[in-house]
């Protein structure tokens, strides 16, 4: 007993120190193999001209210059930004609304939760094709198609993403709403706060952590969107420029990178790689900025 040191848990710390590598090793190795190494290789390839990775030839920053000069990349950037903002707002407002009503103790709310969550279990490509049939089933009555008008393609994708993501975000919001302390709500009631006052002054500040997560997820999801974009419109309609080039009006960033990579010659693979690095910086930067912003609004209970 007299060997016992004042710091608690001393008997446990030594074995942990000795065997720590066993616990850290697998994660570190998997992370390095699965993320760090490909990431570094990707950055290196963005400075190369290559057809297959084994034969990469270093050329410096030319790829980045070409990427920024590419009009289609700029178009897809602004289109993606618009899409991400609109889908961020719609998904979160709707998901919060649904979650709010489903925590009011209405009958069958478990069934509703399940049903709303289900679309999230379907893969993006399948969703894209299913929705393209649904939209065209309607639009064909008006002699048009989702592939013919940019605005149909845009709103079609918004509808698809809302349908898919609202259920997911709803689950997070429900968890957040259920964690709001009952005493606090009761205190608000006793103090005579109206329903909307309770919502905006008590509930929302308390679910701020959920809002942080959900806005982060929907913002990055919006930017990274690929499958649904490819399956729903694949960039159509194109605006055919008089010089024979074309602008794919509903092509988002990830699809633009993909099309650049596979579409052209071996020089374009490096350009696509450079675009992918720019894309990473953009998404990471936006995500972090948004996290920092909403974190400030969280309250400690």
């Amino acid at each position: 007993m007299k060997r016992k040191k004042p710091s608690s848990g001393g008997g446990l710390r030594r074995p942990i120190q000795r065997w720590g590598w066993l616990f850290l090793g697998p994660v570190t190795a998997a992370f390095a193999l699965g993320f760090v190494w490909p990431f570094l290789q990707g950055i290196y390839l963005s400075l190369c001209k290559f057809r297959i990775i084994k034969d990469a030839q270093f050329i410096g920053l030319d790829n980045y210059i070409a990427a920024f000069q590419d009009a289609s990349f700029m178009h897809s950037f602004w289109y993606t930004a618009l899409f991400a903002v609109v889908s961020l707002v719609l998904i979160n407002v709707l998901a919060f609304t649904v979650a709010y009503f489903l925590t009011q103790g209405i009958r069958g709310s478990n069934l509703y939760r399940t049903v709303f969550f289900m679309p999230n279990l379907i893969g993006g490509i399948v969703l894209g094709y299913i929705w393209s049939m649904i939209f065209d089933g309607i639009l064909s009555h008006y002699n048009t198609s989702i592939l013919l008008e940019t605005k149909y393609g845009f709103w079609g994708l918004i509808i698809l993403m809302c349908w898919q993501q609202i259920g997911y975000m709803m689950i997070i919001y429900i968890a957040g709403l259920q964690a709001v302390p009952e005493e606090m709500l009761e205190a608000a009631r006793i103090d005579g706060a109206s329903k909307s006052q309770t919502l905006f002054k008590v509930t929302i500040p308390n679910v701020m952590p959920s809002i942080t997560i959900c806005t982060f997820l929907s913002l990055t999801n919006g930017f990274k969107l690929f499958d649904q974009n490819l399956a729903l419109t694949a960039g159509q309609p194109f605006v055919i420029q008089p010089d024979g080039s074309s602008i794919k009006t509903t092509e988002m960033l990830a699809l633009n990178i993909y099309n650049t990579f596979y579409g052209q010659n071996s020089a374009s693979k490096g350009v696509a790689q450079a675009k992918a690095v720019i894309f990473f910086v953009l998404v990471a930067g936006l995500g972090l900025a948004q996290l920092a912003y909403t974190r400030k609004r969280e309250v400690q209970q």
Partner: protein
Amino acid sequence: MKRKWLALALAAVMLLGLLAGCGGGGNNAGGNGGNNQQQGDNTGNDGNDGGNQGSEAKGSVYWLNFKPEADELLQEIAQMYTDKTGVPVKVTTAASGTYESTLTSEMDKSAPPTLFVIGNAPAVKTWGDYALDLTGTDIANELNSDAYNLYDADGKLVSIGYCYECYGIIVNVDLLEQAGHKLDEIKNFETLKAAAEDIHARAAELGFDAFTSNDMDDSSSWRYTGHMINLEYYYEEQAAGSKWSDTPDTLTGAYMDNFKNLYDLCVNNSTVARTELATGGHDAQAEFKDGKAVFYVQGSWEYAAVIDSVPSATMIPYYCGVEGEENAGLNCGSENYWAINAMASEDDQKATMDFMVWLVTDPEANELITNGVGGFGAMPYKSAVASTNGFLSHAAELTDSGHYVMDWATNFQPNVNEYRAAFVSALNQYNADPSDANWQAVVTAAIDGWATQAAAAKG
């Protein structure tokens, strides 16, 4: 206690994940042994067989197949070869329109395809470096014609044809006669148009229409942006007086009106309205087999699929209003060329070569691969069996009787995926609203788009 078990379970899962990762790495490093094992599994051998093959270092075959319709047949043939010789053969098929991307990613793997397709001049430029020189090899000696050889700039024999095909308009002659027309009377665009428009006008009364659906989704749009547009390229090539040996920098577009003639005829006189083609979802082959339409824009590879349902099926050329087209034949050529991967090990190259020779010399295998459903139709090899493909023999008859063959100038399309995607998008707009302005956009996509992509492909 509970939490401890949970932590232990999580740690175990992580460890398993790592081991799986290591397993993959082991395969990469293990080279041949690992590959054989893996491919033995793929071809469905039992454990013993796989083990045995792993110990014998005799190479294996990995064929990245280009023809989705042949996939089932090739799997069967691969199994047949493995049963016979013990050499593992893996056949992977790229979905239509994704061959380039599949090949790009497969080539970077530690066990890249040993047998792949370099089907045209642009592909020789991109993939030629990775192809084995086939000059004087066993398989090249089996060829009965050098018409299907592709060489790179240094004269290296990069790839050799394994089948040739033709395309045009498949006709259900029985239905045509039921509608009161004769095949003999269709000799040019005027007569084709008269027959098609007459049938379309009386579709309700006849119970069938002129053309099958002409979907513009990825599974079908190539019939127009890849095949029918060939008439424009071909006649342009003819007007210039010589065949292309490389992608021309620009096109004149002189025959776009002829393309428009035939394209309009198809989409205006079809089972499905032209406004409903953009996202597809119709089954043109089924319509043709069920006798819902007389004309079907397709190629010789459809023969085995349709001939049982439509015994009278034959194929006519793309009549499009060009002078002297009474003399036209079918579009004959190939984009099916075998190349052996120069990066593969010598054992694998040898195994691949033996497999190819077996395919073109073994009577049973050759019969199957030539005339089976989804088969190659006709192979330009000495000991290849006679083709039973009626469309191909019809093409030969036409050639023998002095009709000109329209060669596949379409193989020179630059950046083919990007080029065709823009072309399809323009055609969609035009289908929805066939105005002059929209047609002009189609011409821009097909002609100026060619120049743009040809320039981009060089960059």
